[in-house]
């Protein structure tokens, strides 16, 4: 392990990689700050840039963009009450009231400290647990992988569905369907190409990610008059006020940060749960734990209420790398995009990553730690200037983002036909969003589709064409049982609650 850490440190502190970390954190903060563009879009926008880099640098850049975007999103939550992504919705509950009270500077500084704490604690846990899990997962077989992917998909559906599991599951299936377009990887049969040369290689992952998470999000944000109004408000944002926290305040929020970080990490590791759930959960727990006096402050500018979700969402972002690096299964939309990028490099994340590409594995982990320091150094003094960036008119920003997304895809394929496909997917994605279908499960289904089919096929081959491995192999059976639990757990719980007459018990998610 020490050897690995050493490899990681030497790779991560190479000047070019440090530069990538800075660039990533900065670009991420900037993109994440734009309302509507969250970490998924930020990382997706970076993919074309990383194609020219070597794998470690590319993934370090994307990791930087990831936590930069999570931090950036909280800036817009605090300053203009327009969360950049779902994981910072909670940040706005107490952050925006603080900003209205003229304490925007303090709120931003506290968000930066909380993010740092969450990210650092997350990185330390990642360092401890990822190698352990990677070693264990070396003994996994195809059937276990198949089960894990089913677990990943059901978990995403259960958590990302915003209450509607059916719709999220349908999007998983849609993603899986899209992944079958093109040439079948194991016997070379063309599927769903309808005789067109353009589809023989299948749909490009980058194209799908950009069209759904960059184009569609941007067009939606232009369409939404409410966001436009909020943006106009931003240009009259008042002064930031002092950025200093008193000793008493630090003492007050320190335990909150620690608790929320640990909880955030654990939630982040669970496939599908991710930063949004973590931030809501941390907020709810802190509200319940605090004294009556403090409880009244929640929603009106409580420091605890700001520190909890900020620590939790950063810790969860780090935590979501555990399943990605050790099992090759992304736990969230963002890590799904990163998985796609790693595969494009010819690197298959999973237990073998630890063995075949120790430099990538370790440098990502070390860069998480360094990245958090970079983020703090970069953001604390830059807060006043970053706030100014929100004043760039949308009339300029939006065409530029569209341009980056379109050329990002075009520069990889050099095929103008792809731009048209992107537009079609973008229109479909807007329709799906209007009908309340979540898009992240689709992306995850698309990424996992090929692997799921390969592993199922292999598991059947090994097992003489019998599905009995599903219940005969203990590990597979346990994972499948967890998948079923993820799927039916919540409805069952609701049913039990309704029977017991506690159906109206307060839920942390009601806060939304």
């Amino acid at each position, binding site marked *: 392990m020490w050897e690995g850490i050493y490899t990681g440190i030497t790779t991560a502190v190479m000047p070019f990689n440090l530069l990538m970390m800075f660039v990533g954190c900065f670009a991420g903060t900037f993109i994440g700050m734009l309302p509507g563009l969250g970490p998924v879009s930020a990382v997706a926008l970076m993919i074309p840039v990383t194609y020219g880099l070597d794998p470690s640098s590319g993934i370090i850049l994307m990791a930087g963009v990831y936590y930069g975007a999570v931090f950036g999103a909280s800036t817009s939550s605090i300053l203009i009450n327009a969360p950049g992504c779902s994981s910072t919705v909670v940040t706005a509950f107490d952050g925006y009231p603080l900003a209205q009270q003229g304490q925007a500077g303090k709120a931003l500084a506290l968000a930066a400290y909380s993010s740092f704490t969450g990210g650092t604690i997350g990185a330390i846990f990642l360092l401890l647990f990822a190698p352990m899990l990677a070693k264990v997962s070396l003994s996994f077989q195809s059937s276990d992988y198949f089960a894990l992917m089913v677990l990943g998909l059901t978990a995403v559906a259960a958590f990302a569905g915003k209450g509607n599991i059916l719709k999220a599951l349908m999007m998983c299936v849609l993603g899986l369907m899209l992944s079958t377009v093109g040439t079948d990887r194991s016997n070379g049969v063309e599927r769903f190409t309808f005789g067109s040369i353009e589809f023989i290689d299948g749909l490009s992952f980058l194209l799908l990610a950009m069209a759904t998470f960059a184009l569609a999000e941007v067009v939606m944000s232009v369409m939404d008059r409410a966001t436009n109004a909020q943006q106009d408000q931003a240009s009259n944002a008042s002064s930031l006020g002092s950025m200093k926290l008193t000793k008493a305040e630090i003492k007050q929020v320190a335990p909150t940060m620690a608790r929320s970080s640990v909880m955030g990490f654990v939630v982040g590791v669970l496939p599908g749960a991710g930063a949004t759930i973590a931030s809501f959960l941390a907020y709810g727990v802190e509200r319940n734990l605090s004294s009556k006096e403090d409880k009244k402050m929640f929603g009106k500018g409580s420091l605890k209420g700001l520190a909890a979700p900020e620590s939790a969402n950063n810790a969860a972002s780090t935590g979501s790398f555990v399943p990605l690096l050790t099992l090759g299964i992304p736990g969230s939309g963002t890590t799904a995009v990163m998985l796609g990028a790693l595969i494009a490099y010819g690197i298959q994340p999973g237990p073998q990553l630890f063995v075949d590409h120790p430099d990538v594995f370790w440098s990502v982990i070390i860069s998480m730690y360094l990245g958090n320091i970079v983020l703090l150094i970069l953001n604390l003094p830059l807060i006043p200037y970053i706030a100014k960036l929100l004043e760039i008119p949308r009339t300029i920003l939006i065409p530029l983002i569209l341009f980056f997304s379109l050329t990002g895809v075009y520069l990889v394929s050099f095929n*103008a036909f792809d*731009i048209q496909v992107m537009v079609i997917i973008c229109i479909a994605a807007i329709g799906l969003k209007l009908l309340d279908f979540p898009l992240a499960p689709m992306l995850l289904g698309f990424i996992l589709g090929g692997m799921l089919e390969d592993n199922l096929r292999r598991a059947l081959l090994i097992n003489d064409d019998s599905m009995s491995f599903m219940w005969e192999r203990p590990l597979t059976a346990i994972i499948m049982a967890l998948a079923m639990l993820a799927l039916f757990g919540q409805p069952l719980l609701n049913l039990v609650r309704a029977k017991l007459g506690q159906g109206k018990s307060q839920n942390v998610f009601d806060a939304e």
Partner: protein
Amino acid sequence: MTIAKDRIGGLIFLALSIAYGYSTTLIPMYPGDEYEVFTAKTLPFSLAIIGVVLSLALLFSARHEEKSRIPDLDWLIAIKLIALMVVYGAVLEFLGFLIGTTLFLLCGYWLLGERRKLILFFCSLPLVIFFWYVLTQLLDIYLAPGAFMTWIGGV
């Protein structure tokens, strides 16, 4: 205007699943595949069935769905931007990266309501030239000049 989101979503997905299921029958098979348990058709066929079941479940659960209001959205601007992207895709290879992208950005700024001439100019051509320089000179990515440029230059 109000719509029943779940019912519409369910119906669309049902139609999609059925069309997808029908298309699976068009996947060619190898001789001997009929004895195989897992062929190129297996997963798509299962997905089609799962899709149908899920959409029926959504339709069934949406029987009593209350119609919800369509949020107040600015459709016109979305249509304009989408049309702009389609045109960009269509003319990019003819006009070349430099001219095509400059026009795309200019039209984009204009559509969103930017009328200040200085901003319109400085955020388009110089920016595109900068990107063109970074891409072609620094990153060594070849960008075709475009049929139009070749025609003008007579190259």
